[in-house]
């Protein structure tokens, strides 16, 4: 009974604190993710004020948070949107994967962490934060910009790639042999493709199970189905997150729209719990040694993201300024990187420094990314672009007189 009282006090105080932090972050125009992570660091093992009774609660809440993050992501897209986008955006997605996953993997090898850590870190550096980037685009009034679809389609491809990558990581982390790993991957790819096909063909039928008009039944039904499928997916070693993502994809139309509205507050709650939990699991004392490596990794992979966006925008005929906007807009990493690192925490074959490194890395990119996204709007950057354009115009034409 006493434990229960402590739990209430701890959870209540922490949520209240997060609420205040969220308000603060909005006021200074920042994503709340870094503040939640910092809060987690402060209250975790070795932090300022370790929480004891509520650890289990946060562990379960974090699990639900990941599931909700992913199902909401799936709800944002229809299956046909994902697949329709695939063909046109695949080259950009490929550039994105190569330029951003490889530096992460290479970094892990350089640190001598072994290939399991390399696979995980590749994912951490690869995926941009859809949530943060969509927010920044809206805040900067760039939703109408002509390079914005380029940015969004890179994000869509990443999300789709995650549906294949997460099961792979889950299999790798389960410590299965190469043979077992490839079977698990085969099962995962098969499941994902099957669900996509079912979602495209019978998405309407699945959605018809729910009535968009009855909010209570819809909330319980969609949440139930999501958690159920996530659980089944996890027991098949396909990763609970992917199961949830696929449920989101399969739902469409009015059901998806209404479910998004109903689940959003829940997602906000449990996603915050998830970020805190990730911070809780990291000992702040582990942070300082990885700070410099994380900074180096952030600088390199933020540069490769800029290159990704630049090339992707160039490919569809966007002019120079738009290419820079696309590149500088893609830099923040966030929820997905933490989800990936979160899967790896405590697994065998994972360097213990990986989690603190991922935390520091996400903190750096999610804070500086949105700030750097504003650079293309500054007068000095525009002037620099003009000088560059002028120089390029003059170069190929030597004076003729």
């Amino acid at each position: 009974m006493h434990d229960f009282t402590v739990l209430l006090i701890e959870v209540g105080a922490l949520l209240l604190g997060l609420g205040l932090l969220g308000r603060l972050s909005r006021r200074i125009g920042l994503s709340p993710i870094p503040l939640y992570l910092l809060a987690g660091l402060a209250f975790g093992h070795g932090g300022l004020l370790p929480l004891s009774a509520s650890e289990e609660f946060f562990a379960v809440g974090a699990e639900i948070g990941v599931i909700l993050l992913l199902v909401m992501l799936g709800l944002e897209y229809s299956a046909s949107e994902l697949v329709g986008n695939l063909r046109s955006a695949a080259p950009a997605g490929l550039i994105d994967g190569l330029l951003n996953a490889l530096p992460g993997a290479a970094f892990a090898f350089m640190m001598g962490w072994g290939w399991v850590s390399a696979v995980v870190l590749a994912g951490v550096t690869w995926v941009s934060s859809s949530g943060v980037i969509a927010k920044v685009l809206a805040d900067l009034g760039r939703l109408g910009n002509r390079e914005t679809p380029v940015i969004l389609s890179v994000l869509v491809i990443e999300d789709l790639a995650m549906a294949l990558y997460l099961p792979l990581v889950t299999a790798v982390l389960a410590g299965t042999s190469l043979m077992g790993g490839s079977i698990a991957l085969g099962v995962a790819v098969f499941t994902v493709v099957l669900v996509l096909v079912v979602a495209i063909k019978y998405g309407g039928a699945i959605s018809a199970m729910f009535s968009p008009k009855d909010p209570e039944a819809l909330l319980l039904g969609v949440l139930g189905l999501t958690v159920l499928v996530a659980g089944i997916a996890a027991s098949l070693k396909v990763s609970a997150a992917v199961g949830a993502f696929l449920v989101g994809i399969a739902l469409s139309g009015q059901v998806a729209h209404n479910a998004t509205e109903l689940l959003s507050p829940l997602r906000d709650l449990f996603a915050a719990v998830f970020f805190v939990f990730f911070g809780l699991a990291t000992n702040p004392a582990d942070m300082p040694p990885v700070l410099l490596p994380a900074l180096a990794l952030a600088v390199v992979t933020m540069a490769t993201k800029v290159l990704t966006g630049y090339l992707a925008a160039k490919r569809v005929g966007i002019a120079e300024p738009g290419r820079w906007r696309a590149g500088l807009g893609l830099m923040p990493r966030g929820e997905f990187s933490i989800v990936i690192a979160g899967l790896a925490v405590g697994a065998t074959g994972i360097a213990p420094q990986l989690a603190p490194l991922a935390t520091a890395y996400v903190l750096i990119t999610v804070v500086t990314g949105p700030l750097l996204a504003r650079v293309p709007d500054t007068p000095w950057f525009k002037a620099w672009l003009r000088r560059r354009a002028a120089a390029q115009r003059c170069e190929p034409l030597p004076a003729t007189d």
Partner: protein
Amino acid sequence: MRVRVEQTALPGIGVRHDLLTTSGRRVGVVTHRNGRRDLVLYDEDDPDASVADIPLTDDEADALADILGASLMLGQLSGLRQQAAGLLTEQISIPAGSPYVGRKLGDTKARTRTSASIVAVLREREVIASPDPTFRFEAGDVVVVVGTRTGLDGVSAILAGNDPDA
């Protein structure tokens, strides 16, 4: 005459429609999933960038569509002249020598004298819908008038300076 409207999907957000005007400016509308609409105006120097992104509520979008749509209807109205029996539409230009150049629409007292209404004025490709009595004419304006044959002839005479009553 047909305007080419480009439609672009914004995955996860909604749809963008945009068009290039004859004057070389790009204008668009971003429709969000939740029904919100943003009016978007593009930069002249950097056609990929929007300089203004104006969120509109349902009512505001409706009102704006009404205003824009009304002037379009006036343009189409002149095509209807044969269809409405007895009621005609005519475009009458204001010659440089008209006594009403620089004067107010109300001064013509056209409606009371001829029972024909001035429903719009075309000025340099722009349509000024439902001009009010304080509207000042300029040389070269084209006035869209709706009325009976005699009414239209009356307005024509007034604007040309051949006042039937004067």
